[in-house]
């Protein structure tokens, strides 16, 4: 499962891993905007930005191929639209959709695989995103795999009892069975949440997380933020001048 891979990657050690999450988020935002607004000689700009990202991935000691494949998650959705654009006589736009969405995904991947998610969310919180929302996201991520596993067990159990969605008859019954399974999963999740809540209260939960560490925005982070933000801008300017 790829999220496990992400967990492993994000706990690596490299100069990029050590930077403050806010510095990385700022650089990511600049990169995305530079990419999103690129129009002139886009393929060349995209290639240059790709080289930049690949260099950063190597610098972060991440497996290059693995990352490139993982960012391909966006491709199925994009390919459909690119094909439609192509067919309706606008191949340039189709290509633009492909390049932009893939490179954006790769850039996001670079940031989340060099920053553990709790640290990243903490960084977002310190830049002023609503804490309540981020706490919900944190809990969601924590229990995502627990509840997903439960759903998988239920699906497996149903399959072992001979249930399958692919068939020609008995749709109504199977539909109701699936609805029942979801209702059970809902009830279980709900009561699990209550148990979690009770356990946390008994350990003195005050309604918000007390972070074990507070990232310090140091000089090196500021330097990194400035350089990493300038890099895509300069790369694009240089490419557009020469091409």
């Amino acid at each position, binding site marked *: 499962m790829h*999220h496990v891979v992400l967990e492993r990657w994000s706990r690596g050690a490299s100069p990029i891993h050590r930077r403050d999450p806010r510095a990385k988020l700022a650089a990511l*935002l600049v990169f*995305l*905007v*530079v*990419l*999103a*607004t*690129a*129009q*002139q000689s*886009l393929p060349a700009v995209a290639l240059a930005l790709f080289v930049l990202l690949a260099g950063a991935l190597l610098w972060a000691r991440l497996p290059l191929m693995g990352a490139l494949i*993982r*960012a391909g998650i966006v491709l199925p*959705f*994009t390919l459909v639209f690119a094909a*439609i*654009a192509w067919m*309706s006589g606008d191949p340039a*736009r189709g290509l*633009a*959709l492909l*390049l*932009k*969405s893939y*490179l954006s*995904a790769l850039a*996001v991947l670079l940031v*989340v695989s060099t920053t553990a998610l709790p640290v990243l969310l903490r960084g977002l919180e310190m830049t*002023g995103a*609503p804490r*309540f*929302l981020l*706490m*919900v*996201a944190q*809990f*969601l991520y*924590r229990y*995502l795999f627990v509840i997903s596993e439960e*759903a998988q067990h239920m699906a497996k159990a149903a399959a072992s009892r001979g249930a399958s*969605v692919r*068939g020609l008859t008995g749709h109504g019954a199977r*539909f*109701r069975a*699936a*609805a029942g*399974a979801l209702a*059970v*999963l*809902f*009830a279980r*999740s*709900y009561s*699990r*949440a*209550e148990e979690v*809540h009770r356990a*946390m209260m008994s350990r003195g939960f005050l309604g918000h997380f007390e972070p074990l560490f507070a990232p310090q925005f140091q000089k090196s982070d500021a330097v990194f933020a400035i350089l990493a933000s300038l890099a895509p*801008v300069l790369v694009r300017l240089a490419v557009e001048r020469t091409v």
Partner: protein
Amino acid sequence: MKAAVHIPDGFLSTPVWTTLDAVAAPTVVLIVRRAQAGFEESKVPLLGVMGAFVFAAQMINFPVGIGTSGHLVGAALLACTLGPAAASVVMAAILAIQALVFQDGGILALGANMLNMAVAGVFAGYLPFHLWGNSRGRRLAIFSSGALSLLASAVLALSELLISGVRMPGSVLGVSLGLFAVSALLEGAITLAVIEALEKIQPGFVRRPVAGKSLAFGAIALMAVLLAGVGVLLAATTPDGIQKLGLETGIAGRGHALISTPLSGYEVSFLRAEWPRKAGAGLAGLGLIYGACALIGRGRRK
């Protein structure tokens, strides 16, 4: 059958995503505050775990027709059980995790996706349940909740793409609208079936809608439905018509030069020196939104 449309980065034109981010940021902050007010903060595990439930629910397949299957999207189900504000927060958290961890949906497009699914999807979906959830047509109300929530978010996403200049020939547009309709019916049927099953297990899960309480809620819900309705009308016309409408109403606020039709000769020369300014304007806009939100937040806390 994938019904939820998570717009990746690169699909929306710059004026569209900046505008939607600008609208989404304060809206989400407002909804979060509302949810926080009606919910003890210590209940936050519940919202998180229910978000995980919605994720996991995608693994349970519902038979649709011969050999195909669909799954729950969940905005309406959450709205009927947790209430609209809390459901909206859960959906927003889901979208954030999907964009960050799973690269499903873009970061710049996060505002658009949140407006489509966490705001419009939830509030439009809650509207029928809110209005008729206590009446004799309760089952129909729940069904339309599911259907409307999916339809609202899908149609909004589609019209945003069209306004951004993503070309779609009429036939493709027709097919996708048809697909949305089928997905909407499916979401309605799943929502209804799950809620009925839930009530058999434990009746307390499903909310009793309290009639005529919140003006803000009504406004957001109506806005979502209206926007989706306009979206349908727009999508029914040709994409060119939509672009024209986008131009005329100045929907992006920045005039027609920014509605991107990339690589058409005129704009290439026009943009040669323009992009750093444009990108700068985009970033400055984001900065302004951020500053405004931070100020509002600080003012509220006092």
